[in-house]
C-alpha cells in the first residue's frame, strides 16, 4: 500500500514543471516514511505542512487534508493549531491550483467538491483534550448551587400549597438514659423539614440542663417548657402524663393567634418527611396513618405467618371520605378516642384557638369529638404509614452517662472500671 502511494507520488513529482527538486524530496520522503513506521502515524504530511505552510505550490485542498491526519491524544495540541490554520485557509480559497497535485492525495481524505464555507469538515479530526482535565473546585461549587436552586424550584412547583404555613412540633420529654439518643434523632429529622419549624419541648419534672444542652446543639428553633409533674415509671401512667403535658403545651401555643400547624412528634418515633408535606393540607384536624412494628410472635396475629403491624388511621370510601377507623388495638377496631394515640393527628392553629381547651382531656375527647366526624384524612387517605411508633426505652432506673471523658486512651478490659471517668 505504501509502495503504491510512493510510486504514485514519484510519478506526480515527475509531472511537475520545477526540475531538480525531486531527488531531494524523494530522500526526505523516504526518511519520513521510516520515521512514520517507527512512530506509527503519518509523520511526513505534518512536516510537509510545517515547512510549506505559506508556499503557493500547495493547494488549499492539500491544506485541508492536513487537518484530517490521524492523531492520538498525546499530540492533540499540534493538531488543533493545524486545524485552526487550515480552517482559516480553507475559507479564503476555492479550487486547487493545479490538477496534478490532486493525485498526491490518498483516497481517504476529504471530499473537496463541496462549496467551501465554514462548516464541519468530514474525515478524521483530533480529539481535543485540555492540559488539566480535572474538575475546578469553584465550578463544582457553582454546579451544586445550580442543583440546589433547581431542587428548590421543583419543591415550590410541586408542593401541596403555594404558601406553606409554619409548623409547631410538640414533643414531651423527660431526662433519662435514652433521651439524648431520641432527641438528637428527632432534631436531625426536624432540620430536614423544608418549612419553618418551631419545636416546643415540654419536659416532665421541670427544665433540666441536660435537655437544654441537647436542644441548644440541635440548631432548630425551640421553646423549652417545664412541667411540674415528674414522669412516672409505668408505661400506662407515662402515657397519661404525656397527654397532660401536650395539653399544657397546646394552651401555651394557642394563646398566640398566628397561622400554623401543630404536629405531635414524640421523641422516640420515626417520621417520614412526607408527614410535614401532608400536614400543610390540614384545615382543622387531620389524621395520618400511624403504626408500630410488632414481634412476629405477637399473640394478636396468631394465624398469620407474617405479622401485619397494628395501624391507626382513617379508612376511606371511594369518594375519599372517612368511612371507618383502624386503631392500634386490633381487637377493638372502632373509633374510640381512648385508644387513639396523639401522634396520629395534626391540628391547625387557628382552628385550635377557637376550641375550648379546658374540654380537652388526656383522651383526646375534646379534640376528636364523639365519632370522629370532621377529621380530615391526610396522606392520600392514610395510604402510607407516615409515623412509626417505636417505644425503645430502657428500664427506668438505668444509669446513663451524660458525658464521657477518656483521658488516658481507650481502657483495656482490665482497666475498664477505674480509668474511664464519668462526669
Amino acid at each position, binding site marked *: 500500500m505504501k509502495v503504491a502511494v510512493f510510486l504514485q507520488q514519484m510519478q506526480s513529482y515527475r509531472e511537475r514543471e520545477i526540475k531538480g527538486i525531486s531527488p531531494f524530496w524523494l530522500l526526505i520522503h523516504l526518511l519520513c516514511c521510516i520515521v512514520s513506521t517507527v512512530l506509527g502515524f503519518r509523520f511526513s504530511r505534518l512536516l510537509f505542512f510545517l515547512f510549506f505552510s505559506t508556499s503557493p505550490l500547495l493547494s488549499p485542498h492539500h491544506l485541508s487534508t492536513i487537518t484530517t491526519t490521524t492523531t492520538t491524544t498525546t499530540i492533540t495540541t499540534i493538531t488543533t493549531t493545524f486545524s485552526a490554520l487550515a480552517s482559516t485557509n480553507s475559507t479564503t480559497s476555492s479550487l486547487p491550483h493545479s490538477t496534478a497535485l490532486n493525485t498526491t492525495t490518498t483516497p481517504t481524505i476529504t*471530499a473537496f467538491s463541496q462549496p467551501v464555507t465554514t462548516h464541519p469538515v468530514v474525515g478524521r479530526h483530533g480529539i481535543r483534550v485540555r492540559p488539566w*482535565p480535572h474538575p475546578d473546585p469553584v465550578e463544582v461549587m457553582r454546579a451544586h448551587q445550580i442543583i440546589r436552586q*433547581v431542587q428548590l424550584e421543583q419543591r415550590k412547583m410541586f408542593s401541596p400549597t403555594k404558601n406553606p404555613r409554619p409548623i409547631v412540633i410538640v414533643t414531651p420529654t423527660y431526662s433519662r438514659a435514652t433521651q439524648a439518643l431520641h432527641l438528637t434523632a428527632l432534631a436531625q429529622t426536624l432540620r430536614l423539614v423544608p418549612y419553618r419549624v418551631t419545636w416546643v419541648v415540654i419536659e416532665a419534672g421541670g427544665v433540666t440542663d441536660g435537655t437544654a444542652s441537647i436542644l441548644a446543639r440541635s440548631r432548630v428553633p425551640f421553646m423549652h417548657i417545664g412541667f411540674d409533674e415528674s414522669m412516672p415509671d409505668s408505661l400506662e401512667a407515662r402515657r397519661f402524663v404525656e397527654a397532660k403535658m401536650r395539653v399544657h403545651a397546646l394552651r401555651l401555643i394557642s394563646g398566640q393567634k398566628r397561622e400554623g400547624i401543630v404536629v405531635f412528634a414524640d421523641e422516640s418515633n420515626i417520621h417520614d418527611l412526607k408527614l410535614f408535606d401532608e400536614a400543610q393540607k390540614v384545615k382543622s384536624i387531620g389524621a395520618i396513618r400511624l403504626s408500630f412494628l410488632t414481634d412476629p410472635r405477637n399473640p394478636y396475629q396468631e394465624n398469620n405467618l407474617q405479622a401485619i403491624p397494628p395501624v391507626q388511621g382513617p379508612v376511606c370510601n371511594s369518594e375519599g371520605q372517612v368511612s371507618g377507623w383502624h386503631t392500634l388495638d386490633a381487637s377493638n377496631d372502632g373509633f374510640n378516642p381512648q385508644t387513639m394515640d396523639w401522634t396520629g393527628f395534626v391540628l391547625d392553629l387557628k382552628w385550635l384557638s377557637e376550641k375550648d381547651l379546658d374540654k380537652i382531656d388526656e383522651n383526646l375527647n375534646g379534640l376528636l369529638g364523639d365519632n370522629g366526624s370532621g377529621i380530615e384524612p391526610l396522606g392520600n387517605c392514610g395510604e402510607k404509614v407516615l409515623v412509626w411508633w417505636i417505644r425503645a426505652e430502657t428500664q427506668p432506673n438505668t444509669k446513663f452517662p451524660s458525658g464521657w471523658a477518656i483521658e488516658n486512651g481507650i481502657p483495656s478490659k482490665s482497666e475498664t472500671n477505674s480509668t474511664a471517668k464519668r462526669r
Partner: protein
Amino acid sequence: MDKAIWVLLLFFCYFLIGNLSAQDIEHSERAERISGSAGDVLEDNPVGRLKVYVYNLPSKYNTKRVKKDPRCLTHMFAAEVFMHRFLLKSPVRTRNPEEADWFFVPVYTTCDLTPNGLPLPFKSPRMMRSAIKLVASKWHYWNRTEGADHFFVTPHDFGACFHYQEEKAIDRGILPLLQRATLVQTFGQRNHVCLKEGSITIPPFAPPQKIWAHIIPPDTPRSIFVYFRGLFYDVGNDPEGGYYARGARASVWENFKDNPLFDISTEHPATYYEDMQRSVFCLCPLGWAPWSPRLVEAVVFGCIPVIIADDIVLPFADAIPWEEIGVFVAEEDVPRLDTILTSIPTEVILRKQRLLANPTMKQAMLFPQPANPGDAFHQILNGLARKLPHDRSVYLKAGQKALNWTAGPVGDLKPW
C-alpha cells in the same frame, strides 16, 4: 329592568372569566408558552388547512416489508411506517386526488435490516426509484409537477442520500428524482448536501409506551448535574478514534471522565429513563450522524439537552425555539464544557426547565399511536400546511422536464 339583567349577566361573565384565568395563571407558572420563528404554531390544528392524497402502492413497498421484519416498527426509523398509518386514518386524507394539496408516497426505504437491526441502505435508492416510476406511470400527478407537491419520509442517517457513511452520502447526494419533492427526514445540518431547502426535520422515533412506562414522580429532586450514556469510541468502525463523532464524544470522555459532576459511561442501565429524569443536563452529542434519539428523550423527561453538533438543524426548527430550550456547545468548545455549563445563570436554567415542562413541547417530539393532538404527526402536517399555497412555478408547462431520470450512480438504475 332589562338593563339590570344585562348588568347581572356581565357580572356573571366577569366572575366566570376571572375564575378561568386564575387557573391559567397557575398552570403557566409551571410551564411557559413556546413560540418559535413561525409564531405560536405548536398547537395549530392542521385539519382543514390541507388535504393529503395517499398513493395506494403495492404492498411490496410498504406492508410486506414490515411483515417480513417487524423490528421496523420499533427502531428509531419507524416514523415512516407510522406516518403512513396515521395518514390513512387522518381527517386530512382525501380520496380524491384532484383536490389534494400534497401527495404522499408510502415507501419504507429503511426497512431492510441486518441481523443486528441496523438498516442497509444499499437497495433503498432502487426501491425509491421503482416507487417513483410506478407513481409517475400510473397517475399523472407526478408528471404535472415532477414531484414538487409530493412528500416522502426518509428517516435514514443522512436522509435521502441513502448511505450511513457521511463521505459516501455526500458523494451520492440526494437522489436525483427527489430534487423537487419535499423530504421529511431526521437528518439536518446546515450547508450540507443531504439537507434540501424546504425539508421538514422531524425527531427520530422513540417508542412512547416505553417512555411513559418509566415516568417517575415529577417532584423527585434532580440531583445529577450532567448525564450521558452511550459510546465514546466506536471501536468496531473507527478503532483509531477521531472519525466517530468528529472526535467530540472522545473529547467528552477524555476531559470529563474524572469529573464528579458528569455521570457519563458506556453502560446500558435499566434505569436509563429514570436517571434522565433526575438530571439537570443531558448531553446530546453527534454520533455518526448529527441527530440522535437522546434529544427526544431529554425533552420528554425535562432534562435540558446539551447539543454538541456543529451546524445541526433540530426538529421543527421553525416551530420550536431551540436556542431558548437547549444549550448549544461548539465541538471545539467541548474541553470547556464544565465551564460553559456552570456559568449559565440560574434564571436561564429555570426558564429552560419551565419551557421543557410545557406538555405541548413533549407531545411534539413523540409519535404516539393513536395520534394525539399536537404530536409529531400533527407538527409535520402543520409544516406542510405552512408551505401552502404552492408557488406557480411548481406546475410545469406541457413538455417541460426538470428531472434527469438517468442521473446518479449506475447501480441505482437497476430495477428493484
